[in-house]
């Protein structure tokens, strides 16, 4: 070929240009952006708290239909509630400064604070609260998220601006838990929402700033990116120490951790065990564990039934035998699971309600707890007539079939995968074969509802009011005969449990109620249907430039009390800054050089020897 110089020179120039844009572009942009960042930081001396949004993100900003934790954290900060859970985990004053219960235990009177104003300046009165509660009671869409919380309310009225009267149909002990930040009912301004009540389903509540009342005012939200909130400096429970709060969404948790390390983020609630372990030794980052507000466990199908007692589903009949379930319980080494699966960051579980809410937590009394005792479990099964087959798998005495149990696990959960391998090994040791079935959440729940399962991995978290979590174990949550309805957790149904459960709902003395709640947990523990494995701690990583984010005092076990975004963001305060940010540009060029070397190496490896035969 003839070389035409002019063409070549031009090509080289063009190549240099394209390459230059590709390579220098990022650097230039970085420089520009960081320059503007510095400028804006010095121009406005507002302090900003940057936190990672819960990974679930925001489903909607409409408090009546929101389910995701990301939404609830925001809504809990921008709308008021009657009460707020205090440091001891019990309801304390918020909108209501005090409350009283009538002697027949049916009428609650809340004293609403005087002189509060919504962020648009309109007065915030008891009437707003009454309107919100009544909307949830009467409008199906408004009841989407929190309908059951007010199902027992007979009426809600506001006789004057500072009094809210709630009458219940039956005595109800948890009324002070119904409207709490994050997990309870948020009270909305009537004057704004009145006009949207008719088409609540399609109302997105995205006119900024959102009119509300709380420690923060929502000023901006970008779908799947971030929410910006301004501090309400006249907040009744104390002004936020920061001027601005930004909740940013990171889908990959490592991205959030990287941002924290790089100083672009101040707080992550919910790092995983691996990240936690590596972050412990990173400078500029403080880590803490808060007691878990939930458990991870495995459920055994005790014989799925409908409300009328008709057997449904394909559950293995061997699991209806309490001896079998007890043997499985004793074959599981929870301590090993805790140590291996979550790196010891949690507690071995026993009671149904998690340790985050100490007033309800229950432990089996001495001698009653089930130890890890595979030998005893084997003996128990021998005695109950489960013969060992030739392949080491036991045979059911009634069915005459080998014990093959399906174990449904969440396919997106690595801890489920790890736990299930351990379970399979341990159950094999007592002559039970486990078939692990990874499933999507929808498929798993669908099988669960139809009773088509033997064992399932399960986990729950709960707020300070245990009613709902206890409720899903009652007979009334079994499905109807046609398969519809019901949200039972594991087809557990025991009349004795139901009796105690309904009793505790109307006991007003906290100690007495706690005692009954303990008794129902005892029944669950003895039934071996919900095998609770561990309570994983809530793992937190925060920048050391912020203090007060982690609320409460460290316990003797090294764990902090349960954290809520409401208090954490309110109490967070900036520490005097000294760290400087920004990476050196040498690193940039090293990185680019590295990338080029990699590309070049690829080219060299593939260097062509004979190219001539391609020419035509």
């Amino acid at each position: 070929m003839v070389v035409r110089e002019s063409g070549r020179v031009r090509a080289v120039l063009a190549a240099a240009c394209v390459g230059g844009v590709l390579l220098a572009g990022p650097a230039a942009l970085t420089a520009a952006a960081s320059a503007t960042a510095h400028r804006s930081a010095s121009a406005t001396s507002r302090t900003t708290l940057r936190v990672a949004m819960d990974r679930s993100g925001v489903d909607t900003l409409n408090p009546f239909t929101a389910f995701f934790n990301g939404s609830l954290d925001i809504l809990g900060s921008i709308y008021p509630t009657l009460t707020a859970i205090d440091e001891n985990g019990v309801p304390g004053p918020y909108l209501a400064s005090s409350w009283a219960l009538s002697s027949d235990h049916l009428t609650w009177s809340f004293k609403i604070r005087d002189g509060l104003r919504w962020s648009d300046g309109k007065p915030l009165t008891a009437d707003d609260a009454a309107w919100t509660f009544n909307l949830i009671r009467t409008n199906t869409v408004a009841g989407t998220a929190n309908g059951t919380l007010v199902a027992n309310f007979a009426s809600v009225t506001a006789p004057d601006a500072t009094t809210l009267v709630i009458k219940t149909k039956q005595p109800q002990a948890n009324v002070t838990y119904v409207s709490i930040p994050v997990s309870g009912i948020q009270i909305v301004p009537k004057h704004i929402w009145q006009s949207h009540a008719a088409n609540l389903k399609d109302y997105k509540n995205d006119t900024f700033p959102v009119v509300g009342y709380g420690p923060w005012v929502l000023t901006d939200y970008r779908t799947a990116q971030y929410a910006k909130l301004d501090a309400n400096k006249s907040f009744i429970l104390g002004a936020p120490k920061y001027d601005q709060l930004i909740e940013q969404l990171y889908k990959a948790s490592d991205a959030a951790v990287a941002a924290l390390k790089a100083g672009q983020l101040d707080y992550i609630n919910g790092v995983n065990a691996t990240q936690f372990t590596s972050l412990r030794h990173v400078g500029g980052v403080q880590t803490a564990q808060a007691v878990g507000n939930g458990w991870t466990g495995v459920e055994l199908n005790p014989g799925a039934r409908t409300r009328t007692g008709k057997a449904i589903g394909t559950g293995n009949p061997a699991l209806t035998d309490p001896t079998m379930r007890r043997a499985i319980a004793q074959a599981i080494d929870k301590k090993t699971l805790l140590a291996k699966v979550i790196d010891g960051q949690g507690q071995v579980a026993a009671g149904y309600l998690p340790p985050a809410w100490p007033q309800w937590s229950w432990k089996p009394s001495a001698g009653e707890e089930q130890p890890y005792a595979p030998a005893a479990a084997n003996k128990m099964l021998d005695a109950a007539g489960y013969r060992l087959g030739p392949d080491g798998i036991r045979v059911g005495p009634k069915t005459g079939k080998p014990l093959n149990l399906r174990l449904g696990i969440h396919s997106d959960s690595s801890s489920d995968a790890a736990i299930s391998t351990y379970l399979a090994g341990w159950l094999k040791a007592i002559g039970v074969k486990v078939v692990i079935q990874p499933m999507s959440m929808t498929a798993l729940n669908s099988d669960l509802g139809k009773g088509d399962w033997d064992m399932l991995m399960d986990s729950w978290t709960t707020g300070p009011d245990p009613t709902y979590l206890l409720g899903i174990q009652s007979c009334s949550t079994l499905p109807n005969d046609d398969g519809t309805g019901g949200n039972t957790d594991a087809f557990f149904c025991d009349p004795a449990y139901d009796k105690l459960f309904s009793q505790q709902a109307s006991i007003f003395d906290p100690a007495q109620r706690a005692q009954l709640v303990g008794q129902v947990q005892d029944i669950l523990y003895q039934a071996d249907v919900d095998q609770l494995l561990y309570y994983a701690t809530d793992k937190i990583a925060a920048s050391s430039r912020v203090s007060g984010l982690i609320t409460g005092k460290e316990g003797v076990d090294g764990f902090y009390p349960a954290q809520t975004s409401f208090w954490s963001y309110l109490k967070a305060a900036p520490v005097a800054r000294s760290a400087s940010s920004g990476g050196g540009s040498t690193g940039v060029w090293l990185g680019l050089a590295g990338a080029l070397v990699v590309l070049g190496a690829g080219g060299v490896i593939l260097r062509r020897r004979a190219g001539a035969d391609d020419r035509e």
Partner: protein
Amino acid sequence: MSSPAAVAEPAVAAPEPRSGRPFRVPRPGYLISKLAAAAVSFAVTLVIGFVLFNVMPADPVRSMTRGRPVSDAQLAQLRIQLGVDRPMWERFLSYVNDTLHGHLGYSWEYQQSVASLVASRVGPTLLLMGTSFAVSVVLGLWLGMRSGWRAGSVFDRFTSATALTLWSVPTFWLGMILLIVFSVGIGPIHGFLPTAGMSDPTLPQTGMTHCLDVARHLVLPALTMVLVVYAQYVTIMRSSIIAEKGSPYLLTARAKGLPDASVRRHHALPNALLPSVTMIFMHLGGLISGAVTVEAVFSWPGLGDLTYEALKIPDLPLLQGTFIVFSASVILMNLLADLVYRFLDPRVRAQ
């Protein structure tokens, strides 16, 4: 499927648009027939979408309400609202009707209409895909032209080898490597690009600063997509040029004494460009595939990320919605490619 088959195709199959069936000459009904074909394709997409997402008996109500206090009455209400209890044919009819009216169903997960979710995510995806598409087309065509014109030269060997290597890399993995090198920082390298998202919320969200900020966030995801996708365009353009190189008209041009660069630019390029551009449009599906994983890796708030979110549950109506949107856009692009090709082909216009 995805990108590999897309590259494989031009390499093995005779390039359809060039030597192909007799519709080189546009008939009067041409436009109509193409439109009809696209409409049929879309109809088939609708059917496939419906069958896919409705054959599996899934009761979404439990998934939707798990973890929230709901009463029995509410459960029943939700079932009616979702239409789970209606017969299949009725659901199909209302589904077709709804889709044609722009209603893509109601997401289980987000409790809002799929159409509004899609609308809120379209912008970022268009930005990301448009940028990567433009850059990779320019880069790919230019490199392909250069290396095809001098097939066998060092430049050609290097370009082809690099393209082949990058094309063999899983897109998301390449994204992770770029992320760990340029955002997280490894060894002596300090991360200097953002790890996730589309803009920095601490900066003003308007004006030049915002544009620069978005561009900064765009660098890594776009670079990832470009690096994997441009290879296809190199291959396509390179083979087109090689095919044109043997043509008699080039000999004539050379015989006239035109310099090589001029022959390449004014004679070979226009002829090779046309089939290449058509092929490129036809391979837009591969770009979409890349977008899903790249958006997941970089938390880019687009449609791919939405698909990824929907997968976790899986939120079937949302998946169905994104599936239909993706398919419709590909069908539309193919149609455009077809029409533009017929319109632009000099051999056709000459008549």
